[in-house]
Structure formats: C-alpha cells, structure tokens
C-alpha cells in the first residue's frame, strides 16, 4: 500500500500567502499576478494603444534560484509572436504596458533553460517533493520580488481550475491552494536545440520514449525522498516522468522503489533510462538481492 501524505503534512507545506492574507493585504496583491488571469490580457504601448495580447510568460530554470526569474513576456501580435524583456514592461493584474523605449523581438527563440509557463507548466503534472504527491498545475503565481518578477508558486486547487471555466473578473483572483515553487519539480519538454522558435510546437519531444522530458531544475530535494515515497510518486506519473524521477532520485531510494514494482513494470522503466543510470540501478538491485 503506497503511503500518501496526511492532511497535517499537506497543510504544513502550504504557501505562506493565504487567501485571507492575499485578499486583505493590498500591497501584496499589487505584487502578485495570476498567470491564468494575465493570459490573453491586452498589451499596450506607452501611449496606451493596444498592440497585442499576452501569449505566455517565460521563466528561466536556474539551479541557483529557488524561484525562477521571469525572462520574457510573449506577446501575440496579430498571428505572430514577439517577446519583450521584463525590464521593458510594467506588469499589472489587468494589462501589460510597454515602456516607451521597449524593444520587441519578432520570431523569438527559446533561450537556455527557458520555459513558457502556460505551454510547459500550466495543466501539467508536477512533483510536490514536500507533500510527496503528484499534482496538476491549475494556475501559477508570479511575485514581484527584490530581483524583479519571479515564479512564486503553483496553485493546485480545484477552485482555481474552476475559476478558469467562467468569465474572468477584472481583479486577480486570490490563490486557492498554492505550493511554493521551491517545493516543486516540473517536467518540461527537453530541447537540445536552443535556436528553437517559441512559435514552433515541441514535436521532437512528443511520442518518444524516455528522452522527451526533463526535470525543470536541479533536484536536490528529490535526492531526499525515501524509497516508499519515490514508489508512491511513480504510481501517478507517466512513463517518461517515471524514468526522470528514478534517474534523479537517490540511487538507493530509486532501487527500493523499483523493487516494489512488478517485474514487467521494472523492466519497462529501466529500459527508459540512460545506460549509466540503468547500469547503476541494476547493480544496486543485484547487490540487494544477494
């Protein structure tokens, strides 16, 4: 029987910004933006003329940052896509306004370790390392911190998902059940070619076994997971995600989790791994069997 976290464990990892805090503290509300709320909102030039709408928000995974910094705003202008740097815009809950000297780049390309939140994270599965569960992102919250806008947390509440079904209000909605991004691990399409245009779909990652996904950032917290916890997470992940988790977890915990799988599942999962990871885990499984 797989162990799932108890309610007290879940509440401990809840984000510090509660619904009440968010709703009542006007200062903080000005500094927090919901991704789902801002998507599709108008992008205006310095004169206030609408020139497009918000297509996506780009952040950069960096092992050194607990909260990935926003590195660009993708703007849909007509049928084309353009990118603008966060330093060139003012983000608010209802629109994005360009500064007078803002530079928009057409047909932008994906930079190193850059991820588009709406495309690669929203509605996708994530691993909550603290609550030891697999969650689905219903919304993402951006926070304007000392270093600028950053990805603060992911809302996994059903209420947040439900809100996206109805007409959007003018005010940014308060969070429902937000998990600090520092506690999460995301799977994103793996791009080895950094000249990939944002407009192109990630077809190279689709329908391929094993190599299509990577964990979003350094996985120190995954190393702390115990064997039964890794096993519990595996149950809710798809095959590529399972392989990534096994590869990133501590080898002894991964081996313990693998031992709890039936032989077919174990073989299928090992087949997804890189040669080095597979050999290492097989050696561990053999040594434990003796």
């Amino acid at each position, binding site marked *: 029987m797989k162990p799932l976290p108890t309610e007290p464990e879940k509440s401990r990892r809840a984000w510090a910004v509660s619904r009440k805090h968010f709703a009542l503290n006007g200062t903080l509300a000005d500094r927090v933006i919901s991704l789902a709320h801002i998507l599709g909102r108008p992008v205006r030039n310095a004169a206030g003329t609408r020139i497009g709408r918000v297509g996506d928000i780009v952040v950069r995974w960096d092992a050194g940052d607990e909260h990935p910094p926003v590195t660009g705003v993708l703007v849909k202008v007509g049928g084309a896509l353009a990118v603008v740097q966060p330093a060139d815009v003012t983000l608010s809950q209802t629109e994005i306004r360009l500064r007078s000297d803002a530079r928009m780049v057409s047909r932008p390309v994906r930079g190193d370790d850059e991820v588009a939140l709406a495309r690669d994270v929203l*509605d996708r599965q994530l691993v909550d390392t603290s609550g030891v*569960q697999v969650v689905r992102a219903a919304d993402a919250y951006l926070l304007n911190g000392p270093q600028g806008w950053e990805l603060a947390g992911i809302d996994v509440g059903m209420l947040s998902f439900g809100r996206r079904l109805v007409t959007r209000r003018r005010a940014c909605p308060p969070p429902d059940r937000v998990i600090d991004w520092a506690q999460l691990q995301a799977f994103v399409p793996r791009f080895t070619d950094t000249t990939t245009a944002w407009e192109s779909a990630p077809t190279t*990652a*689709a*329908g391929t076994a094993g190599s299509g996904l990577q964990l979003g950032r350094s996985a120190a917290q995954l190393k702390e997971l115990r064997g039964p916890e890794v096993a519990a997470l595996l149950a809710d992940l*798809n095959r590529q995600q399972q392989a990534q988790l096994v590869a990133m977890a501590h080898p002894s915990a991964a081996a313990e989790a693998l031992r709890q799988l039936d032989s077919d*599942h174990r073989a299928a999962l090992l087949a997804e791994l890189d040669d080095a990871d597979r050999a290492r885990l097989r050696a561990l499984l053999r040594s434990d069997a003796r």
Partner: protein
Amino acid sequence: MTAPQPAVTEQPGRRRWTARVLALLAILGPGLIAANAGNDAGGILTYASAGAQFGYRSLFLMVLVTVALVVVQEMCSRLGVYTGEGLGGLIREQFSPRATFVAMTLLLVANAGLTVSEFAGVGAAMEIFGVSRFISVPIAAVFVWALTVLGSYSRAERLFLVLTLAFLAYPIAAFLGHPNGHEVLTNLVSPHFPASHAFLVLAVALIGTTITPYMQFYDASAVVDKHIKPADYRSERIDSVSGSIWSNIIAIFIIIATAAAIGGTGALQSAEQAAEALRPAVGPAAPALFAAGLLGASLLAASVVPLSTSYAIADAVGAPRSVSAKLRQAPLFYGIFTLQIIVGAIVALAPGNLVVLVVNAQVLNGVITPLLLTYILILANRSTVLGAAKNGPIFKAVATVCVAVVGLLSFVVLIQTVFGLG
C-alpha cells in the same frame, strides 16, 4: 529445471482446467478485455433488441460499426502507449479548461447512464432466477462498491469474465437456430439502411453500446498500466484490433441468433425473450445460462464503468486517484465512484421496463460518443502529442469520416427526438 509440482492432488483435472482458464484470462490483453467488457448488459440487450425488432437488417450497420470501433480503439491504444498517459490527463493538457470540463461532464453523464444500465442488467438477470430487482440491485451495488474500494476486485473481475463466457453460446445458437443463410449474408455485405425513426434510434443505440466512451478511456489507461512501450506497439495493436473485431463478431452472432429465434416480433420486452435465442444451443438451460452471462457482464461493467469515470476526472483535475488509496486520501476519486454506484442502483430500481431503460441508456451513449470521439481524433492527429506516431493522412481521413458519420446519425436522432419527428 522442472516446474514445481502441486502438493495438493485432489480433483487435478478440474483444478488444472480452472488454472488454465484463469491464466488465459490473466494474459488477455487490455484491448480484448475492454472489448469483451463492452459486451455488457447494454450491449447484449441492445443487440438482442436489434435482432428481435429488425431481424437481420442491422447486420450491415454492425459491419460499419466494427470498422469504426477498430479505428477508434487503435487510436486510444496508440495514445496510451506513446504518451504513457490516460485520456483524462491528455485532454487536460491539450485542451482549454472549458473543453476539459465539457469532456469530463460528457463522460460522467455517458458513464452514469451506462452504470444505470449495468444495474438494470443485474436486475433483469436475477429476475430470470426469480429474485426481485429490489433485492438483487441493492445487494449488487454494495457488493461491487465493497469489492472495488476494499481492494479485492481483481479476483472477482476474473470470475465475472468467466461468467461472460456464457455468451459464447450465441455463435452456436446462431448456427443451430437455422437462420436464413442467404438473408444473413445479403444483410452483412449489401449496403442498406431502413429509413425509419425507430431504426435510426436503434442505430445510434448500437453505435453507443459498441463504441462506448468508457471503453476508449479504459483502453488508453489499461495500456499505460501495462507499461507497454512504443517498441511493443505492434503486438498491442494486434490485441486492440483483434479484441474489437472479436467483440463485434459475438455481437453479430447475438443479432443473428435473436433474429432467427424471435425476429420480427417487435421491440424486445424482457430479458427472458432475449434468452430464447440461446434455446437452440442449450435447450431448457437457455434462461439460466443467459442470466448467468448477463449477471457476469453487468457486474464486471458495473465496477469498470464508474472506475473509468473516476480515474479520468481525478486525472484531469489532478486529484489523487488509486484503488489502493484509502477513502480519505482520494475523496474525489471515491466520491465520484460511489455517487455513480448509488445513482445507478437507484435509477435501475425505478418502475418501468428494464430492457427499455437499458436501450435508452445506449442511445444516450450514442449521442455523446461522437463528441468525445472528436477529442480523441484531435489528440491522435496532433504531432505535439504523438510525434511521428500521429494519424497518417489515410488513417486521419478514415477516422474523420467515422466520427462525422456517427456524429451525423446522433444529431439526426437528437433533432427528431427533441422536435418529436419520425
């Protein structure tokens, strides 16, 4: 090395036979099991109703439905194998929240209707044994719920599958019932479509019971659970296609056997009538054998159908989902499951003809099916989902025609029903 010999030797022949049957069932692929489970209470009674009401005239339609079923089930298996994800999760990731909500609501309604028909099937089967539905249906509901939630379902599932083997008597009955061979062949291969509202409604019910949304969700999830890799997809495709064809061959035999026995007597009024079709094969044991098969098929699907809904919806909203989780750990998952069982059992106890209730539930499925098929078709067409394994141009054209024709039929029935035409 020799295999260890069993220590217990009593009744060796019977024991070995049982073990072989169970072993065979254990290795049956997801496609075959899904297709077999597709011949549930709704399927059996709808096929029997087609034979009773229209004789052999629905046979050509069943050939077309078989082609559509093969196409649809193949797409679902491919989506499961290549993405490693169930349809619920895929829809959430690939469509807008509103489109996801619509899909999950449609699935919930379709499967709730189907669950009603499964409990109605239990009631109808037990009425043949002389047990009132007011006794059998509540007991079945508690039984299915407890088996699934308390985690001892897998053994019971095999028992239910063994019971459904009773329907293998239909092919024998179809031959022994002396059907008109020329008429059967003509109706199988010659395109025809009787222009009446009653036939149109039955056509949608036949589609709804054959190309069932829950089977599509079940098949995709089952290949994920079985950890079938893209490299092994060739054998999985054979399993999926052969399972679909096998299931519909049985369905065609049910129509032929029923048409030969009671064809042209009008719409089916009771399960006993449907059992008459088995009489040429098994004589006076026909009602009991039919009831056993119907009971097994109904109990099997009464658990699988609500589970399929729970998995898909919990997956789509990102809630915990596992039959091995405790109740409080997966409240949404078990809540949806329990609600469907309760509603299904209560509606099945409502006064009225159980067979009519079952067939109407299949019409509802038939109306919803093309909408959900559209999602599957879009997913299987997308290179962002399947990469090189996406639908090729020919497959895409065939699949689109299948979905469009099913959609058109459903739309016409819906319009005729709403405006009281026909």
